[in-house]
């Protein structure tokens, strides 16, 4: 039996094929990565990246337009390019469990069965709050000043449909008709016309925040998953065959919309294949150990770090976090499992970036479509709420709480849901300006209406 509500399942736009579930990125081969600082110095890393690039560049037959651009882009502008990773907690994560107000007299009244014990990990910025026991990794990041927490983020008159509220977050406006994502609109303005890697979805299908109008973006299942296999063809014939992908798609021109879309996608697929060729069949060389699991979330992050280390020109990346957060029933177990693996994977990703010297270039935004009802329901779960929790991780994240969780007596609206202390578009506009040095008004409708918050240091 499904443990989530009906309406939720129809909103799962990024559902992965069950047959493919868990294939994700391959597990890191034991012993293969050389830990940072133990024999592999920075120069080696750089040489290795250059070696990768050269191996491809030097193969001669690979001369598709755009490939050289991609490498050049990475080599010249790469290190300075900031990267934003969007991690979506699907289903509406319960902020009152992630940071539990154990000292609040109303907490136990609202959550007689689900309340967390007082003896938890203290949240250093507000000692009334305790981290969820499964969120120890997040607490570590927070204590190091690398995690900004927004305990009550949302928007006024929150829509309690997964479908709609998630859409609002994805497009960066409370406008059901908007067809481009907030990051997609940024890429349309600031991106390149020839680099699909600038907007990369790691869940196999286009992640809606990255949906653009013009700029090419890409979706893949994993850094080593983009391989074209041809039965009964190999060697030189196969190389010639795969070089024909792009020309074949463009062969009969772009006379109408269908032909134009084939022509465009063949060109992008051919370019992507070349850009990712260095990763095929090789490990990621991760300098840290990622948690193991079936869903591939940690493997995707490991692959992402390797792509960045390889100098590929990524700018905005989107994927789903581990777990199902639509906890209408028996919340405790589901939430623990989701939070633990998501938190531990994020910590490993941060350590990986630090070891590879990339940590100053990457910020990771963790968000969910809404929070949950203050009061628990009759099934040891919680129903859809309003304001929820978001986090921003990275060495350049300011690391100080934005907004607040007031006394529950004052924090709940008349429906018993948390009121937002920060609008989610405050995060978007502030990130665009502070991280991408980009005019937020060009991507977020009515940008001036949202208070800017200091997110980046």
């Amino acid at each position, binding site marked *: 039996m499904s443990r989530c509500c*009906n309406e939720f*399942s129809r909103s799962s736009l990024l559902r992965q094929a069950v047959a493919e579930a868990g294939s994700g990125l391959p597990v890191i081969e034991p012993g293969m990565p050389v830990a940072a600082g133990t024999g592999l110095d920075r120069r080696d890393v750089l040489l290795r990246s250059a070696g990768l690039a050269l191996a491809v560049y030097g193969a001669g037959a690979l001369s598709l337009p755009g490939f050289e651009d991609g490498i050049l882009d990475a080599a010249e502008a790469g290190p300075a390019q900031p990267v934003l990773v969007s991690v979506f907690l699907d289903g509406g994560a319960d902020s009152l469990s992630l940071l539990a107000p154990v000292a609040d007299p109303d907490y136990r009244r609202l959550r007689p069965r689900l309340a967390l014990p007082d003896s938890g990990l203290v949240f250093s910025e507000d000692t009334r709050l305790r981290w969820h026991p499964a969120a120890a990794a997040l607490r570590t990041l927070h204590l190091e000043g690398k995690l900004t927490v927004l305990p009550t983020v949302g928007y006024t008159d929150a829509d309690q449909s997964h479908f709609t509220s998630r859409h609002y977050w994805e497009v960066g406006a409370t406008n059901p008709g908007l067809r481009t994502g907030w990051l997609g609109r940024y890429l349309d303005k600031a991106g390149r016309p020839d680099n699909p890697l600038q907007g990369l979805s790691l869940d196999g299908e286009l992640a809606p925040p990255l949906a653009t109008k013009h700029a090419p973006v890409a979706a893949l299942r994993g850094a080593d998953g*983009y391989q074209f296999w041809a*039965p009964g063809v190999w*060697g030189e014939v196969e190389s010639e065959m795969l070089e*024909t992908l792009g020309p074949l798609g463009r062969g009969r021109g772009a006379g109408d919309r269908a032909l134009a879309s*084939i022509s465009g996608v063949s060109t992008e697929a051919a370019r992507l294949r070349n850009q990712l060729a260095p990763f095929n069949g090789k490990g990621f060389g991760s300098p840290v150990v990622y948690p193991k699991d079936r869903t591939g979330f940690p493997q995707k992050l490991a692959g992402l770090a390797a792509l960045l280390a390889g100098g590929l020109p990524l700018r905005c990346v989107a994927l789903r976090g581990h777990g199902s957060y639509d906890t209408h029933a028996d919340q405790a177990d589901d939430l623990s499992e989701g939070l633990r693996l998501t938190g531990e994977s994020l910590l490993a990703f941060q350590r990986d970036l630090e070891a590879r010297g990339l940590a100053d270039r990457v910020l990771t935004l963790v968000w969910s479509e809404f929070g949950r009802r203050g009061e628990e329901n009759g099934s040891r779960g919680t129903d859809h709420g309003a304001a929820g929790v978001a986090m921003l991780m990275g060495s350049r994240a300011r690391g100080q709480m934005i907004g607040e969780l007031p006394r529950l007596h004052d924090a709940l609206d008349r429906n018993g849901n948390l009121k937002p202390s920060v609008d989610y578009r405050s995060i978007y506009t502030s990130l665009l300006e502070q991280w991408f040095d980009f005019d937020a008004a060009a991507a977020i409708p009515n940008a001036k209406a949202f208070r800017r918050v200091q997110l980046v240091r």
Partner: protein
Amino acid sequence: MYRGRFGPKQAERLLWRAGFGPRRGEAEALAKKGLDGAVHELTRSGGQRFHGPAPKDERGRRIAPRDAWGHDHLWWLDRMVRGNRPLMERMTLVWHDWFATSNEGVGSQGLMLRQNALFRRHWLGNFKELTLAVTHDPAMLLWLSGTENSKWSPNENYARELMELFTLGAGRGYSERDVREQARALTGWRNDWREGVGPTRFRFDRERHDLGMKRVFGRRGRFGWHDAVRLCVTHPRHPSFFVPKLWSYFIPVAPPRATKASLERLYVRNRYAVRPVVEAILRHPLLYDGPRMVKPPVVYTAGLLRAAGRGIDTESWTWLCSNAGQQLFYPPNVSGWNDERWLDTATYLARWDIAGRVTRPAALDPNKVQAPYDADKLLERALGFWGDPPLAPGTKRVLHRYTQRALARANSNWKRKSYPALVENSLRHLIAVSPDLQTS
């Protein structure tokens, strides 16, 4: 009404738009009947027959569409591949997309297949009857909370989608109040849950139905579920929703204003019968002269299997089609598949894999087969593998150039012997992913 030439080329396009493409020789045979004869054959053909062996998995076992994951997809794909009533399958697919129900929320392949039989029964029937039947179809009752909708706690889920997605269109001729009142009219359905069986005994229960007065579209009455559907289908703005939506499944540009108006009149005059509208669309010049359409993933897959003369002999089609963006019985949401999003870099790779899987069992072994060291002949042979589909000159040119380049790589005796077979294999694959075969 299309008055141009109706030759094999036009017949081929008709077979793609109203079905899953031709088997070997079918386009020529259909062309001989002329346009009217061809449309008649598609819309009025007799009983269902299947050509070729029954579907099975890799190990030769029969498929289990009600029980095994993904076998529901195989079961329907098989009907598309082997059946002789392509338009019936295609209309069933249209209704599956129109009243998009996903097993993700229903959780019963048996109930999904039951809904599929409903769609098939009403394929070119009456839209009002179809909508009435859908309204109390068990899968739909579960999917859009129909059995959770009672007079004590109304649930607006079905009422809203009935108007927004099935009959009127968002913001067209109804208010939030109509949604609430229609939800009341639709109250009364319920089901039981039995351990080991799941949801069962779907029925109307008067006790749960709200007998009070309702006000819908400005009319007052003690409306029930029949009325709720009737009020939507007879709403003055329903025909202008129905016609362009149905049209869009066959022709990728909007109908001209006059055509749209006359189809709406035709639809109302025939008391919401679907058949005359579909017949008129299939005879419209824009189907033959208009722009090409990207084939939906299952149409593409079924079509390649038909052209190659292969049946269902592996379970792979389920996850391959899913990767390409279309697993049957799992539309992404209640508004169906987004046919503007069939192609991106990930689904393109999936289509490449589908083409490779179709050709794999027949791949030539260069140690056993010697193919001609001749570009023209290799291309001709590879086209023959797919039943000689027409290719545009531009596509042929690219393939020809590739063939010459690949053959030129053979700089030794053994390569001159073995490369032609490899090239022929690769040409079959490349033809299948060419723009010509991915669109119709």
